[in-house]
């Protein structure tokens, strides 16, 4: 693989090396980032977005709410041609558009800037409402949040509203790496279900299971996929 040839097609197997450009490490196992597989399956098989379609009103919207540790996100965006691979080594530097939290005005392909937790899902609710109000029935809205991010009360404002409002174009993927200090087994899906969401819990490293859960029908209801990965502390 040539790192400077952006016409190359990158695969999942290239992601660790792309991440290595940001961190200086030679190889990253998938465990190095909890979001890697979820992001790859979404961008590779689920989201209807492309680098030249970022102003298309009909595009799907992916909102990375959990802005911490965005290397996997940048690697996937680079692999899919949204941003040049050449940008990756500058990660976090003054002149780089790629910070430790993404800025939507700097990162091609990023729908929102994030970093402060608990902002993405409420914005996703508004995005879903805005698309509906304009009769744009095709685009789906996705927000990626972390299990500990659910501590933030703003998420619960969004969850409790979206279910009864029947926002069926709204999707959330919760990457659960057991990083919340206070949690109960099954608690994440139960909270969404109690608010009227469709909920599935799957292995967050199993691409087929993720794809099946991401594309499961959920008429009339918003949909959450809880993607379980190795505990952060492991």
């Amino acid at each position, binding site marked *: 693989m040539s790192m400077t040839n952006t016409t190359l097609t990158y695969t999942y197997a290239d992601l660790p090396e792309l991440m290595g450009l940001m961190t200086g490490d030679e190889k990253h196992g998938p465990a190095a980032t909890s979001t890697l597989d979820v992001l790859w399956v979404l961008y590779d098989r689920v989201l209807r977005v492309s680098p030249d379609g970022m102003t298309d*009103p009909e595009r799907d919207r992916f909102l990375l709410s959990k802005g911490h540790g965005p290397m996997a996100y940048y690697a996937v965006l680079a692999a899919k041609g949204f941003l040049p691979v050449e940008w990756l080594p500058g990660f976090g530097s003054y002149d780089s558009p790629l910070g430790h939290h993404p800025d939507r005005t700097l990162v091609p392909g990023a729908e929102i800037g994030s970093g402060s937790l608990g902002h993405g899902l*409420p914005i996703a609710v508004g*995005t879903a409402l805005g698309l509906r109000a304009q009769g*744009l029935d095709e685009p789906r809205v996705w927000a990626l949040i972390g299990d500990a991010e659910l501590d933030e009360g703003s998420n619960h404002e969004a969850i409790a509203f979206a279910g009864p409002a029947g926002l069926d174009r709204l999707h959330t993927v919760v990457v659960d790496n057991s990083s919340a200090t206070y949690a109960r087994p099954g608690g994440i899906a139960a909270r969404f279900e109690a608010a009227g969401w469709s909920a599935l819990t799957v292995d967050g490293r199993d691409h087929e299971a993720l794809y099946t859960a991401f594309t499961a029908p959920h008429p009339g209801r918003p949909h959450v996929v809880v993607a379980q990965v190795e505990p952060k502390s492991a």
Partner: protein
Amino acid sequence: MDTMRDRFAPVVSRLLDEDPRVAVVLAEIGTDGFAEAARRHPDRVVNVGIREQLLVGAAAGLALTGLRPVVHTFASFLVERPFEQVKLDLGHQDAGAVLVSAAASFDWPAGGYTHMAPGDVALLDTLDGWTVHVPGHPDEAETLLRHAVAAGDDKVYVRLSLQSNGRALPVDGERFHTVREGRSGVVVAVGPMLDAVLAATEGLDVTVLYATTVRPFDGAALHRATGTAGTDVVLVEPYLAGTSTAAANDALSDVPHRVLGLGVGRRELRRYGQLEEHVAAHGLDARSLRGRIGSFVGAAAPA
């Protein structure tokens, strides 16, 4: 007389009819006024329940899809409670919205401090790019609301209050308006403070400027006024005292000058009662203002 807030729902309901970009976002407060508009535009009148973080976050999402959200609740719950959403979901995301507040500094004194927001404009001053309208009459509120919604994707705050002047003046959503000209000082009356300022300065040889758009601050108008009226400047604002003092200082940075910032005091009164009682308690009634303005301009420039 009807209130500024009485005008809000009818004006914005008409804008919903006229402009398919306009959407209204509410958090229970103010929903009655939009009942009819919600029937006509069910997808563009959204009530998120008593959820103010979602109120602002959802407005940002609407804006990111190309709509022009008009967001309304009491000032304390619109600017103070979800301040980080105002800072990030609108500012950092580079998304526009029109925030329209009610209840102002102490419109409902019997409701107590939880429903008072004298610090709203000062808080917005910590952020970049906000236009702030402070109408002083329901007619002006109507004009400024239309101006705010029509302002592209700008971030605009419209501060509605029960406090009002007896008659409306022409407002353009931009500049200060010269109401009276004198030679011994400039008094800037913001929004509903004008009537009290005019009564307080009756017979004083001062220029009175009327400000209904305070951000951006019309520093050019203030500077111009000091050319004939001198550089003693009094600001009379219906929110936290001194909110615009820095803006006035910046406008006059090339000349020696003095600025007195009058407005709502910082100290919590822990009083209920009537609006007029709170106006007086903060020294913003005409009689108190006359004493404070008179001694300030008189001390520096005896007539």
